[in-house]
């Protein structure tokens, strides 16, 4: 049963986009992903308007104090298991807006983040790469195929800081090393 669920999830992840205070740069790149040149729907990725049907939450922008609660609420409404992808420098850390009076910080200050895609804004290819890597991590290749000693699990940077993460049962251990790779690739 679990295998079937994982198979279904990897083949057809429904993503929800939430702008928590972005400048529109990353948001437009996410919309561009759906259009003919990039067309993420060929990976089964579908933009879903309701949090209740979504598997992956794509968050763009530094979290403003006014949006903070709303972001938490949207996250809480999503069914388990759920994954959060922080898209863009602002979502990763607050970016240029860190320290502004109405900015709470990066997304990981509010909800646990599974993958970070830096860039201002990240190119559509980088976003695609990040999401596909996240999906691959959900369905990792058999252990014998992996080279030994290369992938080492370590706790996510901000997992301990985030209160919400304590209550979560997101299967992160497989995801982490891949996230590191996503970062490197996306920077190019």
């Amino acid at each position, binding site marked *: 049963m679990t295998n079937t669920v994982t198979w279904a999830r990897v083949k057809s992840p429904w993503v929800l986009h939430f702008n928590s205070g972005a400048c529109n740069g990353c948001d437009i790149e996410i919309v561009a992903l759906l259009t003919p040149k990039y067309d993420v729907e060929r990976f089964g990725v579908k933009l879903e308007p309701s949090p209740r049907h979504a598997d992956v939450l794509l968050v763009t922008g530094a979290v403003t104090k006014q949006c903070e609660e709303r972001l938490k609420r949207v996250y809480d409404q999503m069914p388990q298991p759920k994954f959060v992808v922080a898209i863009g420098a602002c979502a990763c850390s607050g970016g240029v*807006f860190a320290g502004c009076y109405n900015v709470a910080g990066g997304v990981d200050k509010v909800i646990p983040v599974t993958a970070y895609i830096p860039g201002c804004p990240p190119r559509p290819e980088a976003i695609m790469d990040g999401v596909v890597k996240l999906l691959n991590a959900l369905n990792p290749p058999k252990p014998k195929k992996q080279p030994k000693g290369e992938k080492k699990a370590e706790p996510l940077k901000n997992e301990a800081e985030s209160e919400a993460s304590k209550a979560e049962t997101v299967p992160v251990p497989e995801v982490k090393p891949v996230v590191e790779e996503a970062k490197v690739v996306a920077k190019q």
Partner: protein
Amino acid sequence: MPNSNVNIISVIESKLKDKVQIQPGQLGTAAIATTNGLHREVIQTLLDADEKTAITSITGLDLGANLGLLYHIRTSNAFVTIRAEVPRESPKIQTITDIMPGAVFHELEVADLFGIVFEGHPSPGHFVLSDNWPEGVYPLRKDVNPYDVKLNPSKDVITQPSDGKQVKIVLGPQHPALLEPEKFVVTVDGETVTRVDPRVGYVHRGIEKATESRTFLQDVYLVERICGICNSIHACSFVETVEKILKIEVPQRAKYLRVIALELNRLHSHLLTLGHAGLEIGYETLFQYFWRDREPIMDLIELTSGNRVYSSLMTVGGVRRDIKEEDIPKIKATLTDLRKKLPFYRQVYEDEPSLKMRMKNVGVLKREDAIKLSVVGPVARGSGYDIDVRKDEPYEAYGEIPFKEIVYTQGDTWARMNVRMDEVEESINIIEYAIDNLPPGPFRVKAPRVVPAGEAVNRVEAPRGELFYYVKSNGTAMPERVKVRTPTYANIPAFLKTAIGESIADVPSNFVSLDPCFSCTDR
């Protein structure tokens, strides 16, 4: 009789000579210093003298013992700034919303950020800041430390109208039709909209305050990030304002290169909106087509600036990169391709019955309302209100480049989208002309990092309309105050006006025709 050729300054001189102090050439055509309550009289004089008098912005200033107010008023041939001051202990001033309805949101913003009370304002309350903002903290005053601001616990209560007949529908902050988090509470009676309550500020980051703690050079990249769509125009307007204070002239080649960057920005922004409008009326194929054709423009932005979205091309004193000779054929070929596709889109707008049903006679804004509400850009031009800063007050190389000002008179959603469609073609013409007539020479002059004390205003035509900047320097490397008034902020009143009385189903199509950009609006 209102006359558009009137010399505003001489009118004010003849009527209010003894009461106000006129400083020609400062902050636009002239700055007019007023004392207690006279700002209303000056504005009334301007309104009587010129039918196209409208408000661009109100800037708040922290002057120490006093709080300053700058009313920026545009007329058909002038741009006037009216100065007023109120004491810090009891910052009260009379509202101007009764004589100038377009000022409603501008006054709310100054009240929120500076704590100035506008006596007689029809709907006082928080607008930019959240409802649970701590009382008595006015973030743009100099004595507020941004790190100390803590919000009160929030109460999110929606009360239904009491008569039981009407229903409130809440759009947002997270809503599929809105890419950005904003809340609109629409009250409907049956299917007819009777009231719209906007609640912006979800994307308010406090960029105006942040500019005060960064250098002028860093600010170029910060203000660019006010908006991810019309980013070049923000950076361009900011550097132009700083150049005005520095009194440096940009080389001719830089002016043309800036025009190319700005028009590429306009192209991609208009194509985006035209597509988005298709999505909102349920015509998804049109959305996909427009966005397919937008991608080559993004490639051109990348080709000319090195970045796909944030071109980061503008800098004080010119531009940072020149156009490569070998890239010019590619740019021209891409633009020719796009031009060939335009007749198809025109035909869709002219002939497609479903599109016409969703757009024709939807959200009609009359010309007099457009002027009264002080709307800008394609929204104004779709209603026959011909303002285009590129024509009215040419900046950069726009004075030398021939192009048409697009004006439609119907005032509906269809007209507003067609203004954009025609402007796509004009933008292609402008870029081609600029490339063909690119002057030789340097593309950048050295500019000092420390800006002498002074202040300046600047207006440019962003894809969504007139964009206004005010910069005040105190003689250091960091600005004392930067004020930005973005086009969408001026256009929201148009939506509130036109949505009422129409069907709830027409709200998205009407709304998207304003080309709303809330990261701009909130800053």
